[in-house]
């Protein structure tokens, strides 16, 4: 997975330019977040905030709630520590939000005020500012222009630099009518030729606008999992509130006077403030991480859902294999040598401009076939879905054809009344069994042989699918190939299952059947016919280069148009949840040590025997309480990097993962505060009297 980290780091560096400003801005923002309307959104920190004000009052009038040990200095110190606790929590959230905003700012720079050339009804051009464009307007852009807004290409072919959106500087060829590459995005730059496109979004609704809005994340919704966790934390806090509130009369019965400041300190120490403070930052950072991977998630919920995915549906062509097949072999029927087949194939593909055709030509040349001069007078025949063949009408009248075996067979039967050679089927099956697609080549009524068109697996696929398997994710390959070819490729690639000869309806059918089994399904897609399946899937990743319907049906868009990006998104989703769980465990485990610090401190004076509980040998009751509280505050900024970066996710099975995380965050959470509080206490006792 190092390749991925590199890519995200590259992008991170792009934003790093504003790192220093980021911290400063976060510091300022975190002060603004002291507003109660902000605080109340986080129940745990809200209680801390209230406690801060309470102890602040007590600093001025220590006897406000009755005489208690402590004094103004002590109360003031408690208030100050609580202030820092809330501030650190605010800082965490502000920092996370700030990083998102930095990205948004970078994006905003690309959205300059451009003048667009709108095509009026009569065909003339008028100059209109980008904000003046509306959905349905036709706009023309020429070389060097910045595309003013999102649209669907109507005419022209051009090369477009989309680095403003994707960060990739390699230009993309855009042309109309194709499923992919027929849309343009506002803010990108056209490098060559010209385009006419139809505006597909009103101002403020463009892709760039939505990206900015999402990335800013200030008004994002809480995801269901986050809500559930917040409920849990709130109830735990409520329980501790009851414990602390009832402690005062319980202690009073034994003639122990507990000051309100100490009670507040105990409450704050007990509450899961660590996770409470960092929870929102974790969520924001999670979406932010996805964005750094060039994946635009429509909501935090989509990222979480990705972590839960159990079944992955991937197209074969372009995802698992290279987009274009390549000719790898010529197989001659009895009586024909390889050279003959190669020559015939080359003839049939001479005018074939597709990548497959060109690979046939280049393979033929390596097999010794040569261009014949008569071919200059020949005529090429393009592939048609009806004939399922393409070819060349040679100058001497010979019809050289290549295409699907069944189609070619029908061709020679209908046009030449020629019998189909028995060996043809065998040759085709030989090719299919190797995982390639057989194309029959014929010169008039004589089928000379078979071309093997092979898929080339993208590098590293096998490893990726093994990785998925350890996570418990089932992979399904979808292809239009015949079953034999599909099975071979599926075996080579290492997917768990495949669907051959797939039609668009098949995708939805499989998604539904998987969902009926209670599994969550993710799929990638780019074409309009993918849109229903993308909508049906629990996680739909659309390619940025795809059509608008696909992008709208999906809940995530990959700006790199790399379908295997889904694997990274799964990791990010899981990482998000793991970080939440780990910090929650750590937060609760911390409480044990804090009890050992604070309970003896509170009761030792009146119940001397309790000194035995003071296993950390803290100096005085007051330093003990303050140390625990300071630790509680300091642990927040210390864990901010972990919250923002996320717990490192290793692709292991659930049990190993649980063991590891329980060990680090559970046992660690038990031990770390003992050390931390002791150290702070030693430092504090040097000057606290």
């Amino acid at each position, binding site marked *: 997975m190092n390749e991925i980290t590199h890519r995200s780091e590259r992008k991170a560096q792009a934003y790093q330019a504003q790192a220093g400003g980021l911290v400063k801005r976060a510091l300022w923002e975190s002060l603004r977040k002291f507003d109660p309307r902000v605080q109340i959104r986080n129940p745990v920190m809200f209680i801390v905030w209230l406690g801060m004000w309470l102890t602040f009052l007590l600093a001025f009038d220590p006897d406000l709630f009755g005489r208690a040990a402590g004094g103004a200095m002590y109360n003031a110190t408690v208030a100050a520590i609580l202030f820092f606790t809330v501030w650190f929590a605010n800082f965490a959230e502000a920092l996370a939000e700030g990083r998102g905003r930095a990205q948004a700012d970078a994006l905003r720079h690309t959205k300059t005020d451009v003048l667009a050339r709108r095509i009026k009804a009569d065909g003339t051009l008028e100059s209109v500012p980008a904000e003046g464009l509306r959905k349905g307007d036709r706009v023309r852009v020429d070389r060097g222009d910045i595309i003013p807004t999102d649209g669907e290409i109507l005419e022209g072919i051009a090369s477009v630099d989309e680095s403003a959106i994707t960060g990739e500087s390699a230009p993309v060829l855009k042309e109309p009518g194709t499923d992919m590459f027929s849309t343009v995005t506002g803010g990108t730059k056209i490098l060559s030729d010209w385009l006419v496109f139809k505006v597909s979004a009103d101002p403020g609704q463009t892709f760039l606008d939505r990206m900015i809005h999402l990335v800013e994340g200030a008004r994002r919704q809480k995801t269901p999992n986050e809500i559930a966790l917040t409920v849990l934390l709130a109830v735990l806090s409520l329980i501790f509130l009851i414990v602390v509130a009832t402690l005062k009369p319980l202690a009073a019965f034994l003639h122990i006077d507990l000051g309100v400041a100490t009670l507040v300190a105990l409450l704050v120490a007990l509450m899961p403030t660590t996770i409470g403070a960092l929870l929102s930052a974790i969520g924001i950072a999670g979406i932010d991480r996805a964005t750094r991977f060039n994946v635009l998630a429509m909501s935090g919920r989509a990222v979480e859902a990705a972590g839960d995915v159990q079944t992955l549906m991937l197209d074969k062509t372009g995802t698992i294999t290279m987009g274009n097949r390549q000719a790898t072999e010529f197989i001659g029927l009895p009586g024909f040598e390889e050279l003959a087949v190669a020559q015939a194939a080359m003839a049939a593909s001479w005018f074939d401009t597709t990548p497959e055709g060109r690979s046939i030509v280049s393979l033929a040349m390596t097999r010794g076939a040569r261009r014949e001069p008569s071919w200059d007078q020949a005529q090429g025949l393009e592939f048609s879905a009806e004939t399922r063949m393409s070819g060349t009408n040679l100058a001497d009248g010979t019809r050289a054809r290549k295409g699907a075996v069944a189609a070619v067979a029908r061709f020679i039967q209908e046009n030449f009344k020629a019998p189909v050679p028995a060996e043809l089927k065998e040759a085709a099956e030989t090719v299919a069994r190797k995982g390639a697609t057989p194309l029959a080549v014929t010169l008039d009524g004589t089928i000379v042989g078979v071309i093997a068109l092979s898929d080339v697996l993208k590098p590293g696929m096998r490893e990726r699918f093994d990785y998925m398997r350890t996570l418990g994710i089932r992979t399904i390959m979808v292809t239009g190939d015949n079953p034999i070819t599909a099975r071979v490729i599926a075996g080579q690639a290492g997917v768990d299952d495949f669907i051959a000869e797939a039609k668009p309806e098949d995708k939805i059918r499989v998604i539904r059947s998987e969902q009926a089994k209670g599994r969550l399904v993710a799929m990638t897609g780019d074409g309009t016919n993918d849109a229903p399946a993308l909508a049906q899937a629990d996680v739909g990743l659309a390619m940025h280069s795809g059509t608008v319907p696909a992008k709208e049906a999906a809940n995530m868009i990959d700006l790199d148009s790399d379908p295997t990006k889904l694997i990274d998104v799964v990791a990010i989703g899981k990482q998000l949840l793991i970080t939440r769980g780990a910090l929650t465990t750590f937060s609760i485990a911390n409480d044990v040590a804090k009890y050992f610090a604070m309970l003896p401190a509170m009761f030792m004076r009146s119940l001397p*025997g309790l000194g035995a509980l003071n296993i950390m040998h803290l100096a005085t009751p007051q330093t003990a309480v303050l140390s625990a509280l300071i630790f509680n505050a300091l642990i927040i900024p210390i864990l901010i990097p972990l919250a923002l970066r996320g717990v490192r996710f290793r692709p292991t099975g659930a049990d190993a993962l649980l063991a590891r995380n329980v060990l680090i965050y559970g046992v660690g959470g038990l031990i770390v505060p003992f050390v931390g509080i002791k150290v702070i206490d030693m430092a504090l006792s040097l000057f606290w009297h």
Partner: protein
Amino acid sequence: MTASGFWQIALVLGIAFGLSIPFGAYLARVFRGERTWLDPILNPVDAFLCRIVGRRTTALPMDWKGYAVSMLVTNAMMGLLVYLILSIQGVLPWNPLRFSGLNPFLAFNTAASFITNTDWQNYAGESALSLFSQMAAITFPMFAAAATGLVAAIAFFRALAAPADGGRNLGNFYHDFIRALTRVLLPLCLVVTPVLVWQGSPETLTGVAVAHLMQGGVQHIPLGPVADLEVIKQLGTNGGGFFAANSAHPFENPTPLTNVVEILLMMVTSLSLVVTFGIFVGQRRLAWVMYAVMGVLLVGGIAVTVCAEQAGTPALAASGIMLQAGHGQMGGNMVGKETRFGVTGSALFDTVSTAFTTGSVNSALDSYTPLGGMVSLGQMMLNCVFGGKGVGTLNFLMYGIFAVFIAGLMVGRTPEFLGKKLERREIVLAALALLIHPLIILLPAAWALASPYGVSALGNAASHGLSEILYAFTSAAANNGSAFAGLQANTPWYNSVLGLVMLIGRYVSIILMLALGGSLAAKPSVSATAGTLRTDTALFGGFWLATIIVVGALTFLPALVLGPLAEIFMMHPHG
């Protein structure tokens, strides 16, 4: 611990665990409507009883709400009936010692107490209740409360077993209730009662026998239908005794044999329900994990209590008592314990009783060493060490849901339990169930300690007094019923507050868990993969245990520090 003590405990626990497996399977068969060997005799009986209650009523399909409502309505009527009988017992038959009716507060407390399976008794049985009341107002709700708890647990199990209809028909409360009586409770009671009588437990309608003592003077010996009450008291994890001294009384628990029988009766249902749960949800390994976790807590508690009691206290040593067992005497802390049980038989009984929230005692808890008393208190605070009939398993599963939630996050998946996703609704319900317990323990305890109403009833001072009050409300909230009996709680204030705590602790908890079950049942199942958190492993069992201990400790440690822990430190001032 002595060698014989160790073997006593090991054998009793071994027999109990051994019995629970076939019994658990039997319970599963009874409540899944499968054939059992008693069918030929009992099927017609069931049918007859169902006809009386109403054919339509007992065939009505019920979801979790149906169960909740049926439970509340039936329990309310039964409680009301008990209240009435107790209030007018003066004019009812079989009242040989001419006791008058109980005052309204006491009657309310007693009715609430018995219908909630708590059996907290603010009265002394032999000097306050007529024989008719012991039968019709005490034995009766014991059966009802036991059956209610059992039925509630079964409904929950069915909901978790991923029913195909999403939980719309979990069964029928009345039908299940009748079966609980005819297949489980009554057969066992009918058979075990003669064993107790054989050993010396009275079973008669005579109210009292007058003995003319050899040294002169007269001793009035109270009698009555003791044995049959005793059996359902233990089997139904009720706990209310015929006599004030409960199972310390020689008539309730005459011999070591009856002691063993009574302990086994307490344990068998709650142990078996774990097995039944495993069968219902088709995950036997999960049942083993649950067994192990609760078993660790139980065995640990027993070990600590027995050792603490055998070690005694410095005060006992200072008064010249032989604390070491041997030379024909049992040693240890024998204050408030019976000779025939010794230290081991008493500590075992009482620890099991508080773990299984029965609440009966064969020795005085108030006189236990601080550590011994703390174990009992702690087990009730956790309220999930097997626990009372049905409700204990529910509580344990509630902790399980929290453990699954956090552990599930830590393996990077939306947490799921038994194939169902745990989302906001489930967490809210489980969290409320968690919240109720400390709420109804700590708030009333604090009020009692701060007001003369509460403090005037204390039998001991300072930390032990605090423990007495804390114990009372914990016992009520956990529907246990045992007490540090130095607390004279038969006052209007205590009767009312304890009564309310018992009612809330019982019904709110059950309803919350039923709602949780219903919510889970209605969800679609998610299939398990290599990435799913496995709940039936030792690793998760350990995490579950840690969750229970940490959450329980965090909630109750301050109160324990002021109570039993302070006493421990006072007893051993130099560590």
